[in-house]
């Protein structure tokens, strides 16, 4: 069953055509790695799905909530969309003025109207599962990059969205941390969650993703089993992507 369907998504900003008809579909329980060179439109796709960007053409269907081209969707649609999809930003964007605990409980208390005690219990479970429970009273600026990322995951997970999108979670992690993150994400899919993750890191995709989608110059050029696609790339863009990853590794 498909939880996310993107059909012919087109987006331009000024003269630049950023997405030129993206088609993709994600089934429940998958861990999809969305790959491509910088500027290929990976982040923009996520932002469109989260309704942070408007687009010119195409349809996005997130678990039955349909986004269409044109101005901001109506409030009711947005509200429903938020219950379907959560997002972890590359720079985390933890609320600077709130402690870790308050970051995680803000939405459950204010949006889902959960009692604070219950929200805090649940938050503590999440933080514990992600290994950052001991940092619950810290402020965002006091956290390391890896800790901040796990708090951001906990914050998004606290609203229990069936689909979780993560923008470049591997970008600032060393290989050991990358492995830990992968394990965590696989665990999440084990509990029925669906994940879409943008990444440059082909090793990460090979090790943990159930499927890889390659985006180049605003189009999906190749997709399939990560081992297959990344070992025997068919498309020129995929090969370039792998080359640049090798260089980065050796450098």
């Amino acid at each position, binding site marked *: 069953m498909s939880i996310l369907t993107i059909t012919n998504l087109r987006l331009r900003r000024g003269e630049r055509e950023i997405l030129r008809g993206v088609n993709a579909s994600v089934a429940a329980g998958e861990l999809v790695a969305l790959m491509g060179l910088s500027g290929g439109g990976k982040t923009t796709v996520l932002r469109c799905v989260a309704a942070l960007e408007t687009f010119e053409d195409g349809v996005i269907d997130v678990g039955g909530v349909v986004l269409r081209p044109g101005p901001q969707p109506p409030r009711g649609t947005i509200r429903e969309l938020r219950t379907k999809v959560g*997002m972890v*930003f590359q720079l985390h*964007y933890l609320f600077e003025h709130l402690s870790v605990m308050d970051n995680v409980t*803000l939405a459950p208390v204010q*949006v889902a109207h959960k009692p604070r005690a219950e929200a805090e219990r649940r938050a503590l479970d999440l933080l514990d599962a992600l290994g950052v429970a001991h940092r619950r009273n810290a402020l965002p600026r006091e956290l390391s990059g890896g800790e901040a990322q796990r708090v951001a995951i906990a914050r*998004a997970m606290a609203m229990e969205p069936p689909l979780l999108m993560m923008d470049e979670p591997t970008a600032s992690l060393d290989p050991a941390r990358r492995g830990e993150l992968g394990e965590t994400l696989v665990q999440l899919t084990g509990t029925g969650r669906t994940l879409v993750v943008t990444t440059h890191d082909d090793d990460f995709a090979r090790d943990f993703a159930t499927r890889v989608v390659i985006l180049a110059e605003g189009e999906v050029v190749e997709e399939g089993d990560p081992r297959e696609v990344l070992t025997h790339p068919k498309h020129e863009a995929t090969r370039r992507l792998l080359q640049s990853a090798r260089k980065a590794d050796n450098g």
Partner: protein
Amino acid sequence: MRRIHGFLLLLFALAFIPPTRADDRVLHWGGDAEGGAPFVEADPSDPSKLRGFDVEVAEQMAKGLGRTPEFVQVSFSDIDQSVQRGDFDIGMSGVEDTPARRKMVAATIPYFEFHEVLTMRAEDRGKFSTLAALRGLRVGTLGGTIAYELVLAAEKGAGVICVSYDDDVHPYADLRAGRLDAVLLDNIIAARSMRRVPGLYTEPRPVATGHYIGVLASGNTALRDRINDILRARMRDGTLERIYRKWGIWDAYQPAFFAGTLKEQENARQAAEHGSAMQNLDVVFRYIPALLRASLITIVLSCAAMALAVFVGVFIASGRVYGSAPVRALLTIYVEVVRGTPVLLQLFVLYYGLSSVIRLPAFLAALLGLGLNYAAYESEIYRGALEAVPRGQLEAARTLGLTEAQVLRLVRGPQAFRIALAPMTNDFVALLKVSSLVSVITVIELTKQTSIFAANIGSWVVPGILCAALYLVLSLPLSRLAGRLENRWKAATE
């Protein structure tokens, strides 16, 4: 190097040479033309010329000295200080004879006797013949005068409410408008105002008697004595009487006053000029409670005005960031008009200008004036702060399902507040001092009380130090509190 030193020394020396007007052919006399007729006023037929009985008395003095008179404009409340500095030879335009003044400057013999009289609305005629009859009612007067001291004394003794003004025109307008129940001032001023403002009645029985004098720098007794001789001669030969009659201020009291002044032993008066230093100290202690009370008004007014400014400022800023185009345009106009015009003008318009539509009590007008003025400044700070909150913070909040209102209340607002705190503290400390402007609409706050104090003891030194100390006591804790909050947040965000 030596040259530069020499040059600096020269500059230094120049700075300390008093600006004397040692010109033997001219008598510089200082007065306040804003005081108007019949003292000193611009001639309506030729505004470059002056007329008034004080102008003519000054002419007589100059003539007697063989000099030409030349007028120097000075604010009424600054005449003593100004003559002491050497800005002019003699100050005179309704300057009252008081012991404090005699101690500070060299005073001439009195040349006119006036009376403090009560003016009321015509319908109250006969109701108030004394200050004591005005218990619980509002009595207006000109600050820093004998009349002011009388009303102040009646405030303690008879329970009247003293309202002080910076000029002698607005009290009568406010009396007519119902903001006051009576005005106590010199009979000359009362008579003039009766001609200008209809529907008033002045009780003929005087509350007190006073005299107008000329003041010279304390070291200038030689010139003072020559002027005294001239004044006596002009009393004797009827010149002063002719001048007073011309200006319609000659009355039944003057002949006896003239006779008394001419007889009076100069020595007695000279002796009175040297009061004891103890008396001065007494005056200081007598004013401390008044200063403390005035500080309370300053702090309460500033806090309330700031609270209003913050409250209104938040709405203006939100409107300018989130509002529709017409709302944004309206708020922009408000901010630009309020920031672009003097707060003094806004206070005048609120208190006097609108008085035909809505009669605001003075304190409320002051609070509204300052609050609405500062709201414009605050709103700009908040708008900048709101726009300085990173977009990522807002997007993160949106993806969690917060509505725009919640994003503003729970994420954007609190973060903007931390950014705005330092400029806000700055504004509050500024407001504390800007609040001194409200004395123009009869609210006596710290600065006004200090200037009354200074006028009465004839020196700014002690009142100035006390006043500065009180302002610092009010503003320093605030700056420290804000500094501490800022440090806490800065530590948290670095």
